[in-house]
């Protein structure tokens, strides 16, 4: 292909990627080093608010932002270096907890608590998604042609449901005296509160994520299974290989690039775990890194939001994803060069 033609094809995507991915990324990166604050003044203000029968008026010193002539808030932006990162990571407290060998006090610091959960969540669901996805794919592949269509359709359903809705429906099954909790209480003859402690919520979240993502793995693996070399399989059968041996020595090596592909996608998605926190409202017990960024960005009643810390937290999340992906990317690169 001529370079000019190539450029015409690729140009628009590169432009959009620069505009919608690179530019915001750079902006967030820069914002994490600066803090923009309104300029405040302290004034004595009398505020009168309704009581039930008559007003209560209080005079107090209020800190309020200065407005310029146009009625805009006067703000100042200053370079703070790594301060926002320090505010997120709290290295002094973390180090103190570590040097005392006190892991549980390390895990009361928001960032480290979120990192612990996010990593566990990502690394536990990864093998489960691959195993469950592969199992469904092999099962469907061996199912009789007549029922294959409906089975594929049903297996795909969890993946079609909007993530937050899926999380909410599982929450409603279990919260309070939800159907599932009532059933478990009846079956086990004991009182159960799934949302009263962290580990049960975490279990529900893990279950939800595997339930939601396994169909994606299934579709990819199922497509891969159609390309397995039948001759190799047949010769394996003639050599007396069992079902398990055929899976282990023929099918899985053939699917390896797909397994890596799914791992890549899954690691990226999972490290950004967010729907589960909102859906299961687990903030009291479990938070994720992405939720931390969201929480910093959400304005409170008085309209405050921590843009700088949120930017720092977002950059740290990105760094985390890159670190997780390095081994897989290196492997892909090696295979690519080898090929």
């Amino acid at each position, binding site marked *: 292909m001529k370079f000019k033609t190539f450029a015409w094809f690729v140009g628009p995507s590169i432009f959009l990627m620069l505009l919608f991915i690179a530019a915001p990324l750079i902006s967030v990166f820069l914002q994490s080093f600066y803090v923009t604050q309104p300029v405040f003044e302290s004034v004595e203000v009398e505020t009168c608010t*309704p009581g039930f029968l008559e007003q209560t008026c209080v005079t107090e010193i209020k800190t309020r932002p200065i407005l310029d002539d146009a009625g805009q808030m006067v703000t100042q932006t200053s370079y703070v270096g790594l301060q926002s990162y320090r505010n997120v990571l709290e290295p002094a407290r973390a180090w103190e907890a570590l040097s005392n060998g006190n892991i549980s006090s390390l*895990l009361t610091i928001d960032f480290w608590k979120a990192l612990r959960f996010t990593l566990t969540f990502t690394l536990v669901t990864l093998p489960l998604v691959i195993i469950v996805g592969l199992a469904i794919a092999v099962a469907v592949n061996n199912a009789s042609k007549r029922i294959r269509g409906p089975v594929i359709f049903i297996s795909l359903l969890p993946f079609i449901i909007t993530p937050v809705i899926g999380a909410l429906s599982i929450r409603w099954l279990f919260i*309070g005296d939800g159907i599932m909790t009532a059933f478990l209480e009846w079956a086990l003859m004991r009182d159960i509160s*799934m949302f009263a402690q962290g580990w049960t919520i975490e279990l529900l979240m893990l279950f939800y994520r595997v339930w939601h993502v396994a169909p994606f793995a299934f579709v990819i693996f199922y497509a891969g299974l159609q390309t397995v070399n039948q001759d190799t399989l047949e010769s394996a059968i003639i050599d007396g290989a069992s079902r398990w041996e055929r899976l282990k020595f023929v099918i899985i090596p053939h699917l390896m690039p797909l397994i890596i592909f799914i791992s890549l996608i899954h690691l990226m998605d999972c490290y950004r775990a967010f729907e589960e926190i909102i859906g299961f409202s687990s903030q009291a017990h479990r938070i994720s890194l992405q939720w931390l960024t969201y929480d910093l960005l959400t304005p409170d009643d008085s309209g405050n939001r*921590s843009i700088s810390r949120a930017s720092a937290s977002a950059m740290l999340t990105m760094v985390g994803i890159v670190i997780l992906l390095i081994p897989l990317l290196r492997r892909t690169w090696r295979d690519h060069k080898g090929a």
Partner: protein
Amino acid sequence: MKLKSLALAGAVALLGTGAYADCAMTNTTTVKSLTAGFEAWKAVTDAMAECGMVEAELDQEFREKQPAAFAANPSLYHIGGVANGTLVPLLNQGTIRPLDDLVEKYGAQLTPNQLIRVDGQIMAVAMMVNVQHMMYRSDIFADLGIEAPTTYGDVLAAAEKIKAAGVVDYPLGGTFKTGWNLAQDFVNMYLGHGGEFFGDGNTPSINNENGVAALELMKSLTAYMDPEYLVSDSTYVQQQFQQGKIAMANLWASRAGAMNIAEESQVVDKVTMSIAPSPAEGMRPATTLWWDGIVIAKNISDEEAENAFKVAMEGMDSEMVQANNDAAVWLIPGFEPGPLAAGAAASAAAGAVPYPASSQMGLMHTALGNGISDFMTGAKDAATALADIEAAYLTAAKEAGLVE
């Protein structure tokens, strides 16, 4: 199908004509409002809509878009619904207008109590107060011979008795959901103990014996609650009441009406409203007074503002209150305080303080909401939790420029 849609169209048309008659003015320019979405706001915006050309947006997450929407020029909304806290960002940004001249012209029916004054200027017009107060099952209390509790000592004693009698799943309900709700409960308890949130220069001052006492008291209440209390918000507690699962709770006055909705409640006329308990004899009730009301945007023309204010006054008139008497504790003339308003009235009379809204209080509320659950789950003791909350507040306040 055809018949059904015809009937529907007819009904809508009827509704339209009937409704327009109730508004004293004919509105000719578009008026947009952004308010919270609870029952009282529905009543007020419906009454405003009777004047025609009103686009009312009711959104429980309004606080996230209101500051930005009002800062736009022209403002995206004419009328805003605010409360103690959500007034602060609009005031800070200077995006709402003083209402003195409009009140003088069109607000003759307003009582002085309704006018929110900041530095002498009227910045908002309140329509209702809201306060968390005790609600209890009068039938259970009568059966067991328990008096209405006025202190948390009474509450714990009553809870013990109810637990022993085993008449409900859990004696107590609580709006203890991590985040805003849990922080609000701490604010109530801490102010009830007589605590102050800030020292000089907006520095935090909650790590003291009042703070520890407030936390310990909250923890002792949870022994009688549904163990899933950290996910239970106002709606959840309201439903627990309606389904007869709890016997008492310190719940929002705006939820009182729901106890008597026959379609969804099994406890109609069995829930009595009473004063918010104080932490101990001689202390003030552990609750805060909130108000809800309207503001008018600054970045609109004076004519639009005048028109919007007139429409808002139509929405907040006595007819609306008479039609929706039990939807809230109204401040508007024409309100007949019934038994449902008794708890709010008693709490206010006993010296409950207004919620101390300010920029720094917003940060403190967030820090409390994120930090208290570590104490509730047992990950930290009270003093450590409070120290960590103070540290989190300081970080946020320094970033916001409120603390040097």
